[in-house]
């Protein structure tokens, strides 16, 4: 660890590591990543690893499409097999109003070049005879969606960044930040470090970091629970998800089923505990839709946090009040899947002054001054 870096990134999840990797890749490797715990200890290491492009707002679709094209190359680029599989996302709708909205979404998604199919419940049954389609109104499917191993993808970016010269400091907690006329002074448990540019990629702790710098970032963290079964032979290719049904599930490369749901009664705040109610609700719901699960055993149940923004879309950009303070936060449960494109875009903003592949200006903090249009495709 040096005393002075050009760029300091707070957060060693996939977002922080992707930003670090892309900065180094584009030529800026005087970069340090501070992780208060260990790599992937936050939301990344607790997520399900889904990678989806079927969104309700056009700029999310474009950002996700860019992410997918980067995920496709990630194993090759970094030499770490991230277990990426484009088995598709099967989005099931149990609600007529939602189904109608899906029709519009698909039209928009197709216009943006995404290959999305609309499936009837019968189609779903035909393709996936082991899914009980009772109550399903319609479904959409995009083959190019998929999933990957979030730990390995996180490590892939971290190791690749390190190879390019980036310093990654784990167990290094930023406790305070002093904003200087020409940069920042960071107070960590390992001492003071100076940086010209500061990037907040602290996920569930993004608001605390904002407070240290004196910028109010309107994010709140909500616990989400998730669990995994023992491994069985691979047969379940897609990520199955439903917003109206409130669940998602996929089979990992290793053979385990990983699944979760949202809980509308969850209060904001950091809470790593888990509830038995979650297992009960999941068991009942998931066994009905996926009857093959009933004989499978749950081996682990944990929780992580969605860092929610007011419109359930990420907040990415440079602060207008504190120049050179950047943030990539508020991913609202989708940081893993967007990390490649966001890391690339933010690195480009910092190095070239503008993004080259995806326009992310609509994701800046100032959008909330105009009002809030919420992303609907969220579990």
């Amino acid at each position, binding site marked *: 660890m040096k005393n002075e870096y050009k760029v300091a990134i707070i957060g060693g999840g996939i977002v922080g590591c992707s930003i670090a990797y892309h900065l180094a890749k584009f030529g800026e490797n005087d970069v340090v990543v501070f992780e208060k*715990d*260990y*790599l*992937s*200890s936050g939301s990344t*290491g607790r997520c399900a690893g889904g990678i989806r492009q079927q969104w309700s707002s056009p700029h999310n679709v474009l950002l996700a499409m860019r992410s997918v094209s980067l*995920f*496709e*190359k*990630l*194993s*090759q680029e970094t*030499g770490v*097999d991230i277990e*990426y599989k*484009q088995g598709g996302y099967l989005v099931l709708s149990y609600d007529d109003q939602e189904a109608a909205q899906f029709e519009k979404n698909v039209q928009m998604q197709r216009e943006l070049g995404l290959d999305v199919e609309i499936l009837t419940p019968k189609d779903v049954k035909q393709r996936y005879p082991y899914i009980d389609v009772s109550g399903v109104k319609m479904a959409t499917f995009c083959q190019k969606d998929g999933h990957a191993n979030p*730990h*390995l993808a996180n*490590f892939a970016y971290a*190791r690749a960044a*390190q190879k390019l010269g980036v310093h990654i400091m*784990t167990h290094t907690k930023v406790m305070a930040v002093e904003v200087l006329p020409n940069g920042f002074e960071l107070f960590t448990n390992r001492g003071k470090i100076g940086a010209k540019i500061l990037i907040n990629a602290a996920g569930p702790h993004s608001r605390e970091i904002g407070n240290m710098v004196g910028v109010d970032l309107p994010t709140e963290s909500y616990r989400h629970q998730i669990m995994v079964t*023992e491994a069985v032979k691979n047969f379940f290719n897609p990520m199955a998800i439903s917003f109206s049904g409130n669940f998602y599930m996929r089979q990992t490369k*290793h053979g385990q089923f990983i699944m979760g749901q949202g809980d509308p009664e969850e209060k904001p705040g950091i809470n790593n505990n*888990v509830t*038995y109610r979650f*297992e*009960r609700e999941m*068991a*009942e719901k*998931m*066994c009905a839709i996926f009857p093959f*699960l*009933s*004989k*499978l*055993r*749950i*081996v*682990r*149940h*944990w929780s992580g946090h969605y860092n929610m923004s007011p419109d359930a879309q990420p907040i990415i950009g440079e602060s207008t009040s504190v120049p050179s303070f950047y943030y990539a936060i508020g991913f609202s449960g989708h940081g893993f899947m967007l990390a490649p494109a966001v890391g690339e875009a933010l690195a480009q903003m910092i190095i070239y002054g503008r993004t080259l592949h995806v326009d992310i200006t609509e994701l800046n903090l100032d959008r909330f001054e105009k009002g809030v249009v919420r992303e609907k495709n969220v579990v």
Partner: protein
Amino acid sequence: MVKTDFLIIGGGPAGLSAAIETSKRGLKTLIVDEGVELGGQLVKQTHKFFGHEGFYASVRGFEIAKRLISQLNENVTIMNQTTVTGIYEDIITAYDRENDLIVEIEPKYILISVGASERFIPFENNHLPGIYGAGAVQTLMNQFKVLPGKRVLMVGSGNIGLIVSYQLLQAGAQVKAIVEITEKVGGYQVHAAKVKRLGVPILLRHTIVKAIGDEKVEGAVIAQVDEKFNVIPGTERELAVDVICIAVGLVPSIELAQMAGVKIEYIPELGGFVPFRDREMRTNIKNIFVAGDLAGIEEATTAMIEGKIVGVAVARDLTGIDLQEDLEKMQKELVEFRSGPFSDKVRKGLERFFPQSAHSYSKDAQQDLGPTGKLRPIIECFENIPCNPCQTSCPSGAITVPGNINSLPLIDYSKCTGCGICAMKCPGLAIFMVQENHQPGRDLIVLPYEFLPLPEKGQKVIALDREGREVGQAEIVKVVKSSNKTHLVHLSVPAGLAQVVRSFRIPQKSDSIVCRCEEITVEEIERAIDEGYTDYEELRRYLRIGMGPCGGRTCRVITLSILARKTKKSIQEIGCGTFRPPSMPVKFDSIVKGEIDNEK
């Protein structure tokens, strides 16, 4: 006293080929051979031979011996385990080891095809047990199924040194290094490539200085040499080996020929002292012929052709039938085979006996790697050697070896169907199949594979490049078993590695498993720590350690102690990580049933 039309001394490829020609023309033919079984060196050759199909290209040596023997008829008498002890003025004697007696033989014509013996080199302690000639290693290993040792230093990178190294690897030994005193590999590039991609270093300008050990070989000292082949002081280093295998060349066994009165000349290009012979392989003595390595160190295909020439010439002499056409056909075959650069030396040596001719061959190599994304062969054959099974085996006529057999193969990808037969057939194992992005983000590579046990579909392996360096993880997606024992292993590798990966290694599971659910070993944990995963939770996520049904009940503590030892931190400092419910695996069914029960 045994009377015969034709005595063949040595039943290797040359002797057997001669016997086939004379016996089918009704001549009484006697083969006297030292070995337990006929075939000479062929019986210990487990690799596929080069050449064309007329001379058993793509067939393994020991199979060729069987095929040759099967063509002998009732006119042939075989005396096994019998050594010709003298060619006297009046009679020829042979010692029959099985019956412990000397047999007297009176033939009309003689072929001496006794082959060659191995060169040896002087170095300190070269008397120690554990130092073998390469031929001896092959006899032990391939004929009698005895592995001479576990860790081998190979001295010499000619074809024999390279082939025996490969066979040692197949048999499960490690080849620590191949040392080569000159500045270039002596044997075929394709043979060198086979061992290199398995990680065997070929050290050029290196030699053995001494063997280490009292009772037997326990190591070897090797060193670099200068242009004059003198050891450069200070470059010595030790290798821990229990076998030193010497493969520094062959010397024609001229004893019998010389005592029979055959004119001997010194021709280094042919291996040293060799008997004079003419185009028909006849020596200066009318009824004595020579063929095979005795006539000049070469290889089995030319030995077979020479043997055929002898057989035809002897049959013509003894039967009076005009066999000129047959003879010329074989002589043309020899010219064809010897047209390549590897035969320059032999042709130069043979010039001393009679003028040599050669056909021109094409040096034009394949220029492109074909259409990216199509499953197709990549032929890595860049040396002009006499070989064409790729051409003759291709069912769609996509591969050509234009003109002379020594030309380089060319492929017309528009005709190729991607069947993979060429990869299976290629004696040099120099044809690989590739397909970029066979799945998103993954390339497919099909490798010719001759090791047992075969890997299984789904198995994770370590991909190696042409130098045997690890380049990433790969997964076996298919194994096509072939009757010729060159199996085709389909490997899925991260995209971009299609032109990089040429081999793979099955990760060696050590016995000390830490996580029994996921079968993670001490070695894997230590390697991961070395790679920078120095947190228990990072290790867990990286290796899946403790993620199985037991939840880390046994492995957690062991992993923590390995971590503590490697990182020099206390276990207290590292911490015990997180425990998550359920503490034992719980069925969905049990939860659902319990819920119904609780609601009652």
